[in-house]
Structure formats: structure tokens, C-alpha cells
């Protein structure tokens, strides 16, 4: 198990291949977890293509795009944090981590607003869903999948924020850097970003040209 290719920085002795391997195996289970939602989506989309194209137009593409931009930016700040922590730059690492958590929080606020907007328009399954009359049937299917997919993703974002804040707190109190913990948290955060990269075109960008 030669991991020498991985580390460019002087802190190679901190690094454990085992921990990284464990994180990647955990992420593999997460791929399958979200994979089930993606498959369900594909199956229904091929069965009811018209409904999905119409339903997609009920989602706010501007808010969706802003949220994608926010999450990509947070991934960038997380990658910077991982780089900085290896150089033992504790303060700038904490700043980069706080920026990541802050962007994640803004993402959740926008998502929350979107849910509230759908709730007001009776488009949230389980919370008084009423299908608009002029629309094709099975509209509820699309919104059920939208709610399941994005809510599961939002829970992951929330977990990521809490983990980041926990390590920021520990770095502040102990005045030490946590290279491995930051690195593994980074992997998790980037994975959450990856899921959104696929959720965004599948739910928000359908049927915009019709």
C-alpha cells in the first residue's frame, strides 16, 4: 500500500492511508444510498417524460443555480482548507473552514425558502399537496422524488456543517491543527457537492426549452 504519491506536503507522517480508505468505503455506501433515489427518478422519468418536463418548470431555476454556485464555492474553500492545514497554517485553515460552513448554511437557507415556497403553492407531498388542474397526472411523483432527493442531500449538508464546526472548535481550543480530520471532512464535503452536481440538472433543468 504505497501512498507516497499522495502527499506533497511535509506532514506525511500524520497521514494514515487506512483512515482515507475507510472514508472512501463509506462514500461508496453513500453512492449506493443516493443511487437508489437516482434510479427511481430515471425509472419514473422514462415512464412519464411529459409530466417530468412540465413539473420541472415549477422549480426556481435561479435559486437552484445560485445554490449550485454556493456549493461549488464551498467545495473550493474546503479544498483550500485541506491544503492550508497541511502547511500547519491554523488560522487561515479555520477561516477557510468557517467560510465552507457558512456557505453550507446559506445553501440550507435558500433550500428552506424553496421548500416554503412549494408548501405555500401546495406542491409539497405530505404537506397538503394539490395537483394543479391543467397539468398531466403523476405530478406528485416528481415532487415526491424532488423532496426525497433534495431533503436527503440537505441532511448531508447539515451533518457536514456540524462536523466542520466541531473541528473548528477543537482547533480553536487546543491550538493544534487536525490534518487527517480536515482531510477526511473535506472528502465528505466534496461528495455532498458531487450529489448536488447531479441533482441540479435532473430536477431543475428539465423541459426549460418547451
Amino acid at each position, binding site marked *: 500500500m504505497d501512498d507516497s*504519491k499522495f502527499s506533497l506536503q511535509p506532514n506525511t507522517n500524520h497521514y494514515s492511508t487506512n483512515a482515507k480508505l475507510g472514508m472512501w468505503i463509506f462514500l461508496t455506501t453513500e453512492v449506493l444510498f443516493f443511487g437508489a433515489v437516482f434510479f427511481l427518478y430515471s425509472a419514473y422519468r422514462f415512464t412519464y417524460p411529459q409530466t417530468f418536463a412540465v413539473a420541472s418548470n415549477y422549480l426556481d431555476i435561479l435559486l437552484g*443555480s445560485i445554490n449550485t454556485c454556493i456549493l461549488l464555492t464551498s467545495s*473550493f474553500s474546503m479544498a483550500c482548507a485541506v491544503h492550508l492545514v497541511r502547511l500547519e497554517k491554523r488560522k487561515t485553515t479555520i477561516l477557510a473552514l468557517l467560510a465552507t460552513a457558512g456557505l453550507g448554511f446559506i445553501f440550507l437557507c435558500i433550500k428552506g425558502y424553496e421548500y416554503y415556497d412549494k408548501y405555500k403553492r401546495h406542491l409539497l407531498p405530505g404537506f397538503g399537496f394539490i395537483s394543479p388542474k391543467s397539468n398531466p397526472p403523476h405530478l406528485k411523483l416528481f415532487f415526491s422524488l424532488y423532496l426525497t432527493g433534495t431533503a436527503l442531500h440537505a441532511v448531508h449538508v447539515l451533518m457536514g456543517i456540524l462536523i466542520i464546526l466541531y473541528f473548528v472548535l477543537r482547533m480553536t481550543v487546543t491550538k493544534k491543527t487536525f490534518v487527517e480530520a480536515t482531510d477526511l471532512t473535506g472528502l465528505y464535503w466534496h461528495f455532498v457537492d458531487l450529489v448536488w452536481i447531479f441533482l441540479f440538472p435532473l430536477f431543475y433543468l428539465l423541459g426549460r*426549452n418547451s
Partner: protein
Amino acid sequence: MRKELTRLFVVYLALIAFLALTVALSFTPSPFNSLFGLLIAFTKASLVLLFFMELRKSSNLIKLVSTIGPLWLLLLFLIASLDLGMRV
């Protein structure tokens, strides 16, 4: 240090450019919009995996483990699609 941060920033700019492209393409009248959207999503995912998650610098073992998940997912999609496609 600066070189690595610059590289990360360039990747970030590319990701934002791909986001703008995918949104713009979704409004053009073409039957392949969804396909383009997915292709761009895969490109963005590759950038995140290779540069932000540092797969390109990782050991072969990590590279192997990272491909297992998508492979199982592909199998799930193929077999379950066969079932769906053959239902009468």
C-alpha cells in the same frame, strides 16, 4: 503553496463556467438537452474527484475503491432497467 491554490482556483472557475454553460444550454431548443446536462454533470464531477478530492494524487488502492461505487451503481441500473423494460 501559491501554485496549488492557483490550480484549485482554476478548477473552481472551470466548474462555475460549466454551471453557466449547462444552464444556458437547458434553454436552447434541442432534443439532446438532458444528455448535454448529464455530460456536463459528469465533467464537473470528474473535476471535483480529480482535483478537490485529489484522486489524481491518490494511491492505486484508493482509485480502485473510488470506482467500485459507480460500478455497482451501473450494475443496479442495468439489471433493474432490464426488469422494467421487459414488463408487459
